[in-house]
């Protein structure tokens, strides 16, 4: 099974440089106060040499001011982690003017918002942190934040409060009062604001497209289900079965079907066919129930993102259970054909012969327990036309002793009679 490519193969996005970022470890001196993204204000305590996993490393030792936690960073990594100096008074003034300024509509797409906020916290400097606080605060006025964003809001507020406190030299509680005074000014208070600084530019991320190989799409798993298509009939659709020249290959033809998997329940003839793999996938993609409720529409819109965030379970399922959903339209196509008697017989023949239970159960065996449940109704569906079609022949051979409801049994016994002959 081919999974998504490992993330470390992808090139790292280039963040625009932020003012005050430390690019050279030589700039650091013991006693300096720096801001470690997502960690807070740290004080440099010195440089250590340690042997880790057989490598002799030179490490910068820092102490987080908030709780005294030790942070060790290899000298070579200092330039890449976004370590920056504590914001200056001028920068901080800009932050407060930004906080007090009018805010545009917050980003409503939670995926974009969550990703952008994470980027801002890492590489946006103090203004990036302020943007996250202000953005989520503005959103909270529209609706309560979901759990994860509530935590993100609290974390970013915590980082901002401590950096403001260090930068302005005031206690954190007072720094928080300053921030909220700007965010939620009391009635009657109007600030004389300067134009706020330019917001942090985030890298433009192209949407990834997952390319499928033809090997994956060629194999529909029809053999495993005991279905043999007549010669010259491709499973690509009615046009393909007509054997028209110049048609695209099977893989190309079926590629759009994968995109339409979400719309499977709407395909006629599949009403009684549950599509549990989609139901299983949904909670994996969106962890919070809160998120899932209002972001279903986003899932449909943003296919590439859904594939990025899908859990391993959601990725594996379609491969093991791919044959079942794709077969759904097939019986519908076969049903339309009875107008041509020759082709109908051809299709019925292999199904009549041991179209059988063991063959139908085959794909279910390696699949997960959930997939088993899915495979059974699919097998039953396939067996039905086989059992129904020979029904008119059966009463001719055997007397009408047996009730019509047991029409499946004669179909199973037939091959045995044939053998005796």
């Amino acid at each position, binding site marked *: 099974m081919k999974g998504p490519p490992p993330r470390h193969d992808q090139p790292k996005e280039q963040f625009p440089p932020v003012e005050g970022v430390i690019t050279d470890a030589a700039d650091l001196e013991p006693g300096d106060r720096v801001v470690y993204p997502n960690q807070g204000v740290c004080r440099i305590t010195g440089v250590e040499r340690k042997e880790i996993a057989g490598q002799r490393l030179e490490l910068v030792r820092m102490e987080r001011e908030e709780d005294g936690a030790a942070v060790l960073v290899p000298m070579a990594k200092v330039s890449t982690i976004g370590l920056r100096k504590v914001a200056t008074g001028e920068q901080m003034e800009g932050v407060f003017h930004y906080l007090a300024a009018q805010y545009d509509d917050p980003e409503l797409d939670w995926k974009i918002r969550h990703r952008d906020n994470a980027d801002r916290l890492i590489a946006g400097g103090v203004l990036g942190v302020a943007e996250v606080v202000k953005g989520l605060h503005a959103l909270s006025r529209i609706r309560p934040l979901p759990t994860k964003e*509530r935590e993100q809001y609290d974390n970013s507020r915590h980082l901002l409060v401590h950096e403001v406190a260090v930068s302005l030299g005031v*206690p954190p509680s007072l720094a928080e009062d*300053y921030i909220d005074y700007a965010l939620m000014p*009391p*009635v009657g208070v109007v*600030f004389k604001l300067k134009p706020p600084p330019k917001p942090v530019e985030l890298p433009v991320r192209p949407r990834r497209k997952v390319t499928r190989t033809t090997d994956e799409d060629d194999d529909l798993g029809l053999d495993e289900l005991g279905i043999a298509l007549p010669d010259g009939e491709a499973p690509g659709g009615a046009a393909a079965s007509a054997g028209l020249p110049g048609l695209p290959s099977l893989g190309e033809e079926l590629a759009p079907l994968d995109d339409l998997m979400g719309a499977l329940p709407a395909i006629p003839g599949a009403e009684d066919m549950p599509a549990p793999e989609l139901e299983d996938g949904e909670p994996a993609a969106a962890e919070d129930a809160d998120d899932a409720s209002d972001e279903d529409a986003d899932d449909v819109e943003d296919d590439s993102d859904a594939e990025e965030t899908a859990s391993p379970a959601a990725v594996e399922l379609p491969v093991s259970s791919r044959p079942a959903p794709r077969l759904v339209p097939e019986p519908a196509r076969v049903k339309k054909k009875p107008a041509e008697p020759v082709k109908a017989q051809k299709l019925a023949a292999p199904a009549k012969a041991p179209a059988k239970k063991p063959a139908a159960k085959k794909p279910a065996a390696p699949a997960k327990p959930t997939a088993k449940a899915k495979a059974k109704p699919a097998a039953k569906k396939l067996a039905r036309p086989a059992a129904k079609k020979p029904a008119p022949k059966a009463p001719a051979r055997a007397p009408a002793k047996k009730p019509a409801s047991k029409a499946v049994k004669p179909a199973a016994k037939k091959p045995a009679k044939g053998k005796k002959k």
Partner: protein
Amino acid sequence: MIRIVTLSPFDEVDIALLSRTLFQAFGLGTEHAGSRALPKDAQGEDGRYDAMKLLADIDPVKTYADDKVLYLTDAELSVRPGPLGEPPCWCYTEYGGEKAIVTTVRFPERGVTEASIEAWRKRLARETIHAVGHLWDLHHCYDARCAMHPSWSPGLPASPEAELCSFDREKSERRIRLAKT
């Protein structure tokens, strides 16, 4: 343990009710630990008391590890102005620390009617929960129904609830559980 210290005369019934409210909010024992005088050095030229200086200069109260001391006063407090001006001071706390001070000067008039006294007590409970919340590392909350919402916010209802939102309640419980004692 939360120890309430009064810096001005307060009704005993109010303090008893406040103790009960704080116990319900944080699950910590609360008691009235006596009265102290306001340090005169902390008073500024405008008659207001510098909140930071007041907390630093005030006579200490005997405490044990993780005890929180809550000072109550009816004097007006001031804080250092920030980049956009001086925020109104309802309370001042040592974030994640030990001491906090709450002033009742901005509260609605206590009055003599039962309703006005009840409203005053409710506001006192709300502001003390807010101050003690800061002592347990809680930040301000955007939810106007939460006691951690800024006290000057225009979104705050006239008679705000003296309760924490579920997020802050869980966070404070976690902090209290992880406390040294």
